[in-house]
């Protein structure tokens, strides 16, 4: 296997994430009749934040400073396992799907710790919500991944989302469709998108993810923003690979297909966000349980 496609997809994974956010924002702006910020605005925001200095409260400890460093690092490590276009990702071994899921768990854990470290009851509340919803989203994610693992006969991300998946759609279409629907709901919940969390507000009653990072500033906040964009990117790549399992064999063409799929998914998320209101907080667990039940029915379909 040549090195260039691998480096190319790694570079894409590093550069692309804020673009997805930009496309989502632009879609929402167009659908609500506004001009909206430029598609590249998230990059400008990151650049601006990197120029600034960080402010640290005297009550915080090293945990608070470690948060913004560890979480993007965990996401970057997770990105190495995600097969973007090439037959195999940069790193790959039997069972790496569990590591992938828990690298995202590590990032959440350190973000929650950093939020608790500030001692603010407000951030504690956000941390508690994040963990509550994550504990419901994680089973749904794993059951959805189990459907794919069962269908493709592999627990290795590169093979699960590899060429076998295309043939599997013909034999186990309904189950995979259920897994994809469940995965989409998990994607919305994990990335604090609309029906679960409103990423644009700073109202205390609506925030889950935003509230935990309120005290981070400057470059730290830039890392956090980049990390969450990367998380969205990781989930999106897997969903696109699941929904569009096309493998032409020519690297460039495959790359174009995946990027087009990612942009399409970003537009879809923008449409979902514009067309529905945020759910009441007590209804969010129901949404996540629904997601889990969808995946569980899918698993039953392939497992009987």
């Amino acid at each position, binding site marked *: 296997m040549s090195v260039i496609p691998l480096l190319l997809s790694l570079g894409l994974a590093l550069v692309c994430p804020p673009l997805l956010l930009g496309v989502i924002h632009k879609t929402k702006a167009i659908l609500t009749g506004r001009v909206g910020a430029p598609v590249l605005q998230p990059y400008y925001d990151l650049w601006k934040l990197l120029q600034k200095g960080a402010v640290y409260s005297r009550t915080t400890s090293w945990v608070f400073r470690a948060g913004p460093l560890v979480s993007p690092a965990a996401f970057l490590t997770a990105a190495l396992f995600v097969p973007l276009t090439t037959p195999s990702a940069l790193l790959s071994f039997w069972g790496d799907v569990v590591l992938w899921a828990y690298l995202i768990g590590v990032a959440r854990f350190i973000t929650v710790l950093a939020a608790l470290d500030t001692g603010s009851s407000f951030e504690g509340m956000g941390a508690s919500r994040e963990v509550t919803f994550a504990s419901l989203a994680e089973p749904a994610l794993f059951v959805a991944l189990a459907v794919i693992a069962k269908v493709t006969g592999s627990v290795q991300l590169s093979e699960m989302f590899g060429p076998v998946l295309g043939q599997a759609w013909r034999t186990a279409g309904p189950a995979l*469709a*259920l897994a994809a629907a469940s995965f989409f709901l998990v994607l919305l919940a994990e990335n604090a998108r609309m029906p679960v969390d409103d990423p644009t507000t700073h109202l205390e009653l609506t925030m889950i993810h935003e509230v935990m990072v309120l005290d981070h500033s400057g470059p730290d906040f830039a890392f956090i923003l980049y990390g969450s964009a990367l998380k969205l990117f990781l989930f999106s790549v897997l969903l696109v690979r699941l929904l569009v399992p096309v493998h032409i064999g020519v690297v460039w063409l495959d790359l174009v297909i995946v990027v087009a799929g990612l942009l399409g998914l970003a537009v879809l998320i923008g449409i979902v966000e514009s067309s529905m209101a945020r759910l009441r907080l007590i*209804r969010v667990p*129901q949404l996540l*349980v629904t997601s889990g*039940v969808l995946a569980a*029915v899918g698993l039953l379909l392939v497992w009987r």
Partner: protein
Amino acid sequence: MAQGIDLILVLAMLLNFLVLGSSRLRACIRAVAFQGVLLSILPLLLHQGDLAVHMVALSAGMLALKGVLFPWLLLRTLRDGSMRAEIEPLIGFTASLLVGAVATVVAFVLSSRLPSLPSMTSSLLVPAAMTTLLISLVVLVSRTKALTQVLGYLMLENGIFLFGLTLVQSMPLLVELGVLLDLFAGVFIMGIVIYHISREFDHIDTYHLTTLKG
């Protein structure tokens, strides 16, 4: 073809969960109606050999009754009865969904124990029928509005219809037509009765109906 049948059956199963998870009565009525429409397509897909006239008639009748007439009647009752369009279940929505998931597992396990008929075209048919039956029972037990009782009853019939489809070749048309007729009469009477109950007593909660006994 087999893919299409499986897809319809899976969609029908998911609509059960929509009924369990939705708090809007209107959405539930639409979901059950859509389930009826989906099931009315099935006899046309499941037939082996030539398309018999009675199968087409059954599909058309089912489509007209469950897809058009029943939802129209129920939505009219909902509107004219000026009742609250929200469901207040005895079991919470999240818990109902979990019970539904358990019911689905039970249905799959049970149907794997049943002997399979040679005439069965899709292996999903019996599990889907069992799931619909079990979840309709959950709906009947846990939702106290009179309208949701009707919905549970309709879902029960959908499940029975699915079971009937396993014998699609030999199923006498008269039996299925009889069931449809019973259902039609049932829903018609219930629609009228609910309408009158809600006019007389300004609520249609079956929980309170037990206290009416002399």
